[in-house]
């Protein structure tokens, strides 16, 4: 009898459709936007106010040529702030999540590179005061945020000024 197998396939397809419905729900999208946006706004503020500390953190990774460290340390926090604000407010949602996803991918690569080289340095994720060390937990956190970003890009139909897009 085939009804058993057909029933399983039907349940599996239904599960996929259900998941897709949940992920495209505008409320779930709002949740992703708010979480990703607010994390990045919070992360950016101290780096903007104390650029030298962030520049020291960037330098510690020993990846960029020394001359470029300051420019990068200046621009990245402002990207984080702008994209975070745009996400929370619901404008330029896909562009912002794209940029943040790119940033997160870069951060993950930097973190893994630092771990591989055995560097025990401050992550530089949130600025000076409540900083944490480089480690696999940071990588997992960033992967989680990256998933949020990918979710937003994939399921946002179009941007609008209102908090919850249609």
């Amino acid at each position: 009898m085939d009804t058993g197998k057909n029933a399983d396939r039907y349940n599996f397809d239904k599960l996929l459709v259900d998941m897709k419905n949940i992920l495209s729900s505008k409320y779930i999208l709002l949740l992703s936007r708010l979480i990703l946006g607010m994390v990045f706004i919070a992360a950016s503020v101290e780096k903007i106010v104390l650029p030298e500390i962030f520049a020291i953190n960037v330098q510690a990774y020993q990846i960029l040529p020394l001359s470029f460290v300051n420019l990068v340390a200046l621009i990245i926090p402002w990207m984080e702030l702008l994209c975070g604000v745009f996400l929370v407010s619901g404008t330029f949602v896909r562009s912002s999540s794209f940029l943040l996803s790119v940033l997160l991918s870069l951060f993950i690569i930097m973190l893994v590179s630092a771990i591989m080289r055995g560097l025990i340095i401050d992550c530089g994720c949130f600025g000076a005061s409540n900083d944490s060390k480089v480690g696999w937990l940071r990588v997992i956190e960033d992967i989680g945020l990256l998933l949020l970003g990918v979710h937003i890009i994939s399921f946002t139909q179009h941007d609008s000024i209102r908090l919850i897009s249609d």
Partner: protein
Amino acid sequence: MTKITPLLREIFMILLLSVFLALVYNAFSSRGISLIRKEILKIAAPDSVLFSRSSLDDSTHGVKVIAPLHERALRNQDSMAKLYPTIHESDFKIISLVQLKKLLGEKRGVMLDARSAGEYKQGHIKGASNIPALDVEKYFDKLVTIPRDTLVIIYCNNPECDLGQMLADFLKVMEFKHLLIYDDGWDGWTQAKMPIDTTSINY
């Protein structure tokens, strides 16, 4: 699939706006940083400058430390600056553990721990006061009471830690004349199994 081009334009505009805001804010911020990061050349302080008698003639070990490379580097400062235009000199000189121990033995100078208050409490070099480099402006009143020609010895955690340099820069602006940094820092001190002090000194 919606069109890509307006998205690319948005992405580019956001990037441009970020760069613009970053440069403008940095130009007006009191804590702004230079756009091109330069390497700071660390020059070691020779014993002849630190100690009036000729250097580390320790009678028990009979070891005399000669530092001709340091002397030559000091003499050729200008030519080095021309060779390496991206490097500029530091306002301070580097001292080794041996020199630090001798200075401490002679009870010379003022020692400053540039790390945060929490790190200082966990352990510091005996005799060092805590002037966290990150909040140095708050300690201006304390620093102002120190005569500017006192020998100042600063340390941080290790050679990679920039807090010592930051503190030295600030003190240089305050016109302190003699700034030394014990570059190996707290890590070097504890690795050499030197005593750890947890009392604190307040001016």
